[in-house]
Structures are given as C-alpha cells and as structure tokens.
C-alpha cells in the first residue's frame, strides 16, 4: 500500500482547464452520491455529463456553482477550482461565484415578472448597469445572444411565464448570460421541451460555445453526441469515463460505458 498516494491525474487532456475537480465526494446525509470524481472542464468546449438516472451527474453539476449549499444535509468533500481558485474556500463569495458560473435548470423557471425584468434580474443584483439605457442594452444583447430578441422585442413588458416552454427556457438562458458569466451549467435543459424547442436550444448551445464554458447534463445520448465535444459518463456516483465525445460514442474504453451507449441499461 502506498502511504502517500500522488493525486490522481485528471481524466481529460486540456491545456488550461476552466474548472477542475479533484477527488470530489458528495454526501446527502449518510448516503454518498458522488465518489472520488476528478475532472477538468475546458473553456472552449461544450462538456456533456451522461449516465442513467440517479448516477449523480446533476449532483456533481450543482457542486460547480455550490447550489448543493441550498440542499439540507448535503456535504461536499474534495477540491473544485475555477481558474485556480478554490470554489469551496471559506473566503470564496458564493454570490460572486454564481455570477461567474451561471445555471439553467431542468424545468424552465422564469420569475413571475416581465420578460425585461427577468433578464435584468442578474445585472440589477450585481449592479452592472449604470443607467436605464445601459440596462436596455444589456437586456437586448442577452436576448439576442439567446436567440429570443425577435420573438420578445415587442412584448418585453409581458410576463415571462406567459411564453411557451421553449421560449421560457431560452429566456432563462438569456437571464443567465445577461451577467456575462464564464461558465454556464445546464441541468437537462431540454427534458421538459418538445423536439422543435429542443433543436432550437441545441442550436443556441452551439452558438454560445467558445464564448462560455458550457457544461450540460443530459439524459439523451443523441443530444450529448450532437452538442458536446467532451463527454463524461457517470455511473453509480463515479466518473467511469471522460473523453472526446466522438471517442466515447464510437470507441468507449470501459465496458459500462459501452453497455450504456448501446442501450443495455439506463
């Protein structure tokens, strides 16, 4: 037995990772949800987390912006860094972390406010606009980048909850990018949407690639293959395999990955 094991090298091979995780363990009360996960997340790629239900992919995603803090009884061990800064350090300000690492949820969750106010929510919190004109510009550019401007420009005062599901989800993406984050976490962003709205979101993810580091959790393997360049396969709380998306889907190394990809379980 080695007394001082060297830190396990991360799976993946990127020059300068945007976020790194080393030996992350997550517990919900007594139950361990994540076991020794180490991963590097690249700034210029879309990274997909796939795996069967309950494999811990969403739990791990929520560690990256400390959203697990809001869950009672959740405990995170290990080290997660954003540009070399420890995310879980005591001097890390959660408010600033979440401004840098934005999140889009499974179910579209626009606030019961106007479309404009939904997008302006983050910039107002963080004081990004000095004047009304500034704010108008921020809202417009966020809606444009989210591909929602043409549909929304004439109804900015209407309630965000009155839009269709796909539009609501793009509104949530606009809301997330309005504060110009560095990383966007997407937790199954299309699972509540129809195929057309899903295709629209996938296009959008592709357009946003490069500008933001994007991590997407998905149930849908075709979606992972379509939108991501890197894919991580989770199973029973462990990271089984992490590689270029093309190699994962054409040439998986682990049998568990292969079984999952070929539909043997999940």
């Amino acid at each position, binding site marked *: 037995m080695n007394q001082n094991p060297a830190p396990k090298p991360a799976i993946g091979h990127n020059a300068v990772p945007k976020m790194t995780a080393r030996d992350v363990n997550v517990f919900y009360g007594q139950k361990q949800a994540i076991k020794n996960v180490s991963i590097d997340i690249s700034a210029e790629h879309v990274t997909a987390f796939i795996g069967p239900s309950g494999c811990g992919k969403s739990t791990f995603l929520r560690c990256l912006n400390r959203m697990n803090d809001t869950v009672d009884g959740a405990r995170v061990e290990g080290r997660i860094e954003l540009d070399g800064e420890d995310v879980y350090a005591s001097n890390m300000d959660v408010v600033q972390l979440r401004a840098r690492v934005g999140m889009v949820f499974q179910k579209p*969750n626009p606030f019961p406010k106007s479309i404009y106010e939904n997008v302006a929510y*983050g910039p107002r919190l963080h004081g990004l606009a000095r004047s009304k004109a500034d704010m108008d510009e921020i809202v417009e550019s966020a809606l444009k980048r989210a591909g929602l401007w043409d549909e929304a420009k004439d109804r900015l005062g209407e309630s965000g909850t009155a839009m269709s599901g796909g539009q609501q989800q793009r509104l949530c993406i606009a809301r997330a990018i309005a*504060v110009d984050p560095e990383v966007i976490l997407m937790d199954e962003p299309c699972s509540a949407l129809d195929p057309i709205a899903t295709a629209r979101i996938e296009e959008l993810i592709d357009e946003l690639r490069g500008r933001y580091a994007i991590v997407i959790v998905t149930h849908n393997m075709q979606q992972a293959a379509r939108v991501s360049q890197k894919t991580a396969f989770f199973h029973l709380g462990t990271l089984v395999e992490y590689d270029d998306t093309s190699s994962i889907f054409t040439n998986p190394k682990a049998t568990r990955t292969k079984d999952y990809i070929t539909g043997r379980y999940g």
Partner: protein
Amino acid sequence: MRLLIALALVLGLAGLAYLAGRSRGNRMVVAAGGRIGAVHSRPVYHGAYVAVLALAPALLVLAGWGMVGEGLIEGQVLGSLTAAERPASGNDSDALMNEVRGLVNGDLPQAFNPLAPRLAPVYAAARTNGDLLAGALAVALLAMGGLWGWSRLRPDFRARNRVEIQVRALLLIASIVAILTTFGIVLSLIFESIRFFQLVSPVEFLTGLAWSPQTAIRADQVGSTGAFGAVPLFWGTIFIGAIIAMAVAIPLGLMSAIYLTQYADPRLRKWLKPILELLAGVPTVVYGFFAALTIAPLVRSFAVALGMTDASSDSALAAGLVMGVMIIPFVSSMADDALAAVPRAMRDGSLAMGATPSETVKKVMVPAALPGIMGGVLLAVSRAIGETMIVVMAAGLAANLTANPFSSVTTVTTQIVALLTGDQEFDSAKTLSAFALGLVLFVMTLILNIYALAVVKRYREAYE
C-alpha cells in the same frame, strides 16, 4: 324522558334488525358454498341495509314529535277550556302553560293561576298519550321498514350499492344541517334588523356620527333622545382590527413565516412552527385580560410620559396591539403556505443568479407569494374585526370618532355585548340596534372572506 326511552328502544330494535339482516346474509353465503360472487354483497351490508330501512322512518317520527308535539299538546289543553276562560293574549297563555308544566313536572308547588291545577291532569294525560302514540308509530314503522328490507335480501340483491347510497344521503343531510343553520342565523339577523330599521332610518344608522343608544321610557325623561349613528363604531372596529392590529400582525407574521420557510433549520422549524401556532390556541378571554391588566397600563404610562396627562386606561392601542399578537399565527401560517407553494425552482433560479437569500425573498419569493399572503391578511382582518373579548375588556365603551390611538374607542362587537347584556326589552331601538350592528359586521366579514378566498384560489391555480 319518555322520548329518550323510545329512542333507546328504537336504536335497540334497529340493532336487532342489523343482526337479522346479517345472519340472513351469512346463511345465503353458506348456502352458496362460500364462492366469491355467489352472494353479491357481504353479510354486513345486508345487515346495514335492513337496519337503515328500519331506523330512518322511526327516527323521523320521533324527531317530528319532538319538534311539534308540545304545540299539539298545548292546543289540546287550551282547547279543553271554555271560550270565556281562555287567556286573552299569547303571553298569558304562555304563562298559564308554564304553570301547568311546572305543576306536572313538580317544579312548582303552588300555581298562581286558578286554571292551572285544573289543566294539569289534562296536560299530563295528553302528553302521555302523545308520547305513547309517537313511540308506537315509530316502532311500527321500524318493524315495517325492517321486515320489508329483510324480505328483499337475495343472493343477487345489491345491498352494498344501496348502503353506499344511504351513506351518501346521510352525509348530504349532515352538510345541509350546517348550511341551514347558517341561513337561519342570517334570517334571524335580518328580521330583527328590519324591526330596528322601522324605528331608525338606515341612512342615519350608516352615516350618523353620534352613538348614544338611550331611548326614552317616559316622554318627559331627560337625556332620552337616542342617537344611532354607527360610524364611530365602524371606525373603532376598523381602527383597532384593521389598522393597529394589522400594523403588528403583518410585519411580525410575514417575517416569522419568511424565517421559518427560508432560513430556519428543518429541525428548528419543527419546533418553532407549532409553538407559534399555539398563539392561535390561547383563549381570547386570556388575551383580553392580558390586554386590560398588562398592556393597557403600560400604554397609559407611555401616553402620560408623552405628555397626555388625561390618557384613558382603555385605549385603542392596547386592544389593537394584543389583537395583533393574536392574529400573528393566522398571517404567518397563510404566508407560510403561500411561500412554501412557490416552486423551489423559482428560488433556485434566483440563488443561481447570485442573489442572496434575502434578495431572493424580497424580489422573487414574496412577489410570487403575494396573492396568498394578501388572502391570509384579509382573512386575518375579517377575524380581527369580528373579535369580541379583547375589545370588550380593553377598548372601552366610549364611542369616540378619533384617530388618537391612546384614546378610548369602541367597536361593533363591544357595543353588541353592552346592548344585549342584562334584562332587555325586545321592542326598543336600543336592543334591536345590536342586530343591525351584527348584520353589518356579518356583511363586512362575509365580503372580506369571499374576496380573500377568491384571491387565494386564483393564486393556487397559478402554480398548478
């Protein structure tokens, strides 16, 4: 007494009917060899079916006799008098009948009315006959109903479905009783109010600024001009119940709900919430003497310290403060429900944008829960303006139209209590005004309740 015996007898016989039906069901099951489906219903349903058919008509007869029997007996007893002997007015015949009943029951050793001793045996005989007749009729109907039901039992008889219909009828009757009672209360309020409005015009009542419900007994009496302007009472009610009490209850209730739903550790919440709700279980009379004996003197010393040397010891502020504390659990539990009903995704969405918990509460949770919170506040207001004990003990009786919280004001409920306490003549405007006040209060709380429930309902739909 005899009616009670009849009731016990009827219930006992219905029990026998149940046993008879069940045993017949059992025998059918045995005869069919115990195969499932050979006998449609299980024996208990056969028994219950027979018992209900036996019991229902008998109970109707006994209940009917209990309601109209006394009137019939009275008619018979008074009818035995000659026309000349008959009491002239309804009041006189009531008095005579009371004496007769007293003699028969043995409560009255000696009657004043010379007719009473003569009528006593007539009354006793009529009552005995009537009770026996009603009892016999009930038992006969019971036997007929039971036998008819018993004769219908067959292996393919759908007793289970019949019992289900009977149960539904029973539940319907129970809810109709509650609804009819409400209607009865409203009608009695309306009839007495109409009598009041024949004496005092509704315009004066609803818009007059002076309240002094003393009416003259003799024409030459001093200070006898009654003034029935109820505006000072409405103002006092709103001042205490809707302004001062809400100024206490809304901030405290809302903030405690926010703390309990958004911040408190679940283990702490498990303890704190029931303790807070204990406030709702304190009898209002206890709040009343807390207000009168503890808070009112403090408020008065405070007013004196402010320079109001003539401050009253009954103050709107004392009553309103304590009432506000009483209302806190209403506001907080409604606000708690409303906040808990806001989808978690909404809160997560805000937190994920980098909002602090308090920013999330202020900008997302409270606006989203606002209709529910408003509904809770309106229900609390309607509860506060109908509240009686605290204001009776702490708010005073002086009908002042003032916005000074340290002065004594009075409320609708306090005045109703004052007007109806003691011996009252029910033909004076003074007494009848209590019903008009009650009617106004009822209408106010009814409107508030309907509006509040509509608000809460609309809001529930928004998230389902």
